């Protein structure tokens, strides 16, 4: 029995964050290098890792989130291996290496605490905030783990002469220096977008990348949990 399952044993650590399969990320925790992760995203850990929900630092930075139910982040400290997942979504671990990225809050799984980060609301998109569209801008030297429903695709925004339009439900992340605006393609006869009949997209322009997932399912699974 062991032999058949042996293929799923963790590989030795080579980096701060690594994929274990498609939909799990393994974080090498070390004291002094803390991690913020979505509350409830831990599936296993090994070693001495402690979790602090609702950390004060987050409350300061992310006051906007706090709607009385606490922040959706927990702080993980300690030494060990931490495994995170989000209901089988694909996980993408990336080394920012000095760059920065704006991530849709729903698609943010974890990030290094030493990164510069902040919560921002996209200008002109306040009307979408009701559905939980807040985004986190992270930058600096460190790692970020994103989730994606299905294999994501990365598109160069600056390639076409026109803007790049994205279904907000499918949006995962984008380069923060892109210009963003909301666009309604709302004609009497046009109906795209899911369900509501309200057609809107986010329009990006400038040099940078946009990451989208092949699914318009943006419901926040982790938030549902207790």
């Amino acid at each position, binding site marked *: 029995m062991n032999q058949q399952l042996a293929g799923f044993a963790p*590989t*030795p*650590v*080579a*980096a*701060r964050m*690594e994929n274990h399969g498609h939909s799990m990320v393994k974080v*090498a*925790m*070390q004291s002094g*290098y803390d991690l913020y992760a979505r509350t409830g995203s831990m599936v296993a850990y090994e*070693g001495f890792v402690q979790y602090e929900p609702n950390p004060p630092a987050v409350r300061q930075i992310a006051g906007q989130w706090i709607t009385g139910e606490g922040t959706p982040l927990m702080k993980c400290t300690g*030494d060990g*291996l931490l495994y995170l997942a989000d209901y089988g979504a694909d996980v*993408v671990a*990336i*080394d*920012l*290496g*000095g*760059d920065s*990225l704006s991530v849709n809050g729903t698609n943010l799984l974890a990030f290094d605490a030493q990164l510069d980060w902040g919560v921002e609301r996209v200008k002109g998109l306040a009307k979408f905030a009701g559905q939980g569209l807040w985004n986190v801008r992270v930058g600096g*030297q460190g790692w970020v783990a994103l989730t994606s*429903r*299905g*294999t*994501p*695709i*990365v*598109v*160069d925004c600056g*390639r*076409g*002469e*026109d803007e*790049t*339009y*994205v*279904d907000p439900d*499918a949006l995962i992340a984008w*380069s923060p220096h892109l210009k963003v605006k909301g666009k309604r*393609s709302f*004609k009497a*006869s*046009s*109906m*795209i*977008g*899911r*369900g509501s009949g309200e*057609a809107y*997209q986010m329009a990006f322009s400038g040099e940078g990348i*946009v*990451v*989208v*997932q*092949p*699914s*318009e*399912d943006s419901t926040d699974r982790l938030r549902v949990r207790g």
Partner: protein
Amino acid sequence: MAREFQRGHKARISDLTAGTDLYVGVQISGPGLSFDISCFGLDADERLSDDRYFIFFNQPASPEESLQLLGAQAGDTESFRVTLERIPPQIQKLSFTATLDGAGQMSQIGPGYLRIVAGGEEVARYSFDGSEFSTERAVMLGDFYVKDVWRFAAVGQGFDGGLEALLRNFGGEVLEEEEPEAPAPQAPEAAPAFAPPAFAPPPAPAPQPAQTQQAPPAPAQHIPQAPAPQQTPQGYVPPQAPHTPAPHPHAGHQGPPPPPHPTPVHAAPTMAAPLAPPAPQPGAQVPPPPPPPGPYGQPPVQHHGPPPGYGYPPPAPGGFPGQQPGPYGQPQPVAGQGGTPGVAAAFQKYREVPTGSRWTQQNSQLVRVDLGADAQPVLARQGSMVLYQGKVDFGYKGAGFAGRITGNATGQELSLMRCTGSGQVFLAENEANLHPVELQGDALCVSAENVLAFDETLAYEVRRIDGHGIPGGALFTMQFQGTGTVVVKTRGTPVVLPVTPTTFADSNAIVAWSAAAQVIVSSQVRMRRNAYPGHSGEGVNLQFRGAPGNFVVVQPYEI
């Protein structure tokens, strides 16, 4: 970012890269097979009027050195350096070819590619494998050709006759006098005469650990030939000398022709390169070619020296002061990211796949349609657009065609939108697997809920399959016919079954079937029913009948 080419694709080189000093690498291999990879410089009539532009192992450079053969390196079986602006005007086309030496046929080859690297970055890749070929013994892999400007075309066409047929194709009579005539019969007799047995180790001229596929399968009598010219007692360096064809021109194919410079020279830049790929240096005689990126289009991975282990933290090259390796490791550049950290590099593997065709599968769950390719609108399921670029108009396409029937009868409504304009639209839905199916005059039936998008040029009609026990009373399918593409979505990996006299499918899991197959609803409610307490849950099946060649697609998910 490498642009993927498929057979027949063409592009301007200026669209691929601004550089004109290009590295062209060919990887081709097969068990027990050996190949000659050469480059033909052809004139406007596609003739090899000047045989000094036939670049092969025995003539590794053209007179002004605009074309040079570099030998095997960095995972490529053979590589060339092409300096476009130095190519004389009478040369209008460069054809990169691979010919089999010895027995075999092209259908036996494993996956290979032809790639173009400029400035250390792979800009184009044409991948092929044995399934694209049959009994060919010589293939033209790709062409550079002048049509106003230099362009690249992925060709992938071959000749059964091997090198001989290839030469004849390029203007035989010149060649048969000047160049190695009828090479195949000569090789065996000449080979033993010249082979110095001392030089048995084949990889001597190019000690590259990465090239596993290269050396081992070579037939024995060929091996010694590769290093031979370099080590001949005459002492001159053969590559530059335009000496007359060697007595056994066909033999030295496997080992690379003597590389003008030992490969380790540019092993060093490759190690240091990833952060700043060196610009091509036109002045140097044979400059180290820019480090070709590793396979899969990722940033360069070192092929020389010990491979960076995945299993343990790579030895920190002194770049991380103050960070002791902790017991569980810590942030380190991963080998796969080639030392160019940053968001763009990290996302490399998820990059958009650019090709010129109308429908391009980006990954298993995303499809891109290029509306600009020919201005035909596309009908897509509403809400399936995840991203678009360019001027695209989304119009509401009434549910009239199917909705009236389906919507009323079953409550399920297929509402479509019409995408018009010019631009690229990325379509996906709910991380379902997508399968673009190209119809060329044939017909396909697709269950209505498995249609994601299709060309408006296709004629479609709704067919209704009645049956007792089918939820909603009937199964609605759309039959597509004509020329165009249908994108079918499935949950999970589907199975494609040939239609036999006993092919059954669950009406809930059926995705599509070829329209020539006849569908019969078979309810399994016979006498047996009473034999079971309750029933099996598999009430209604569809039975298919049809001539051989028909097929059924079933998904592992019951709606």
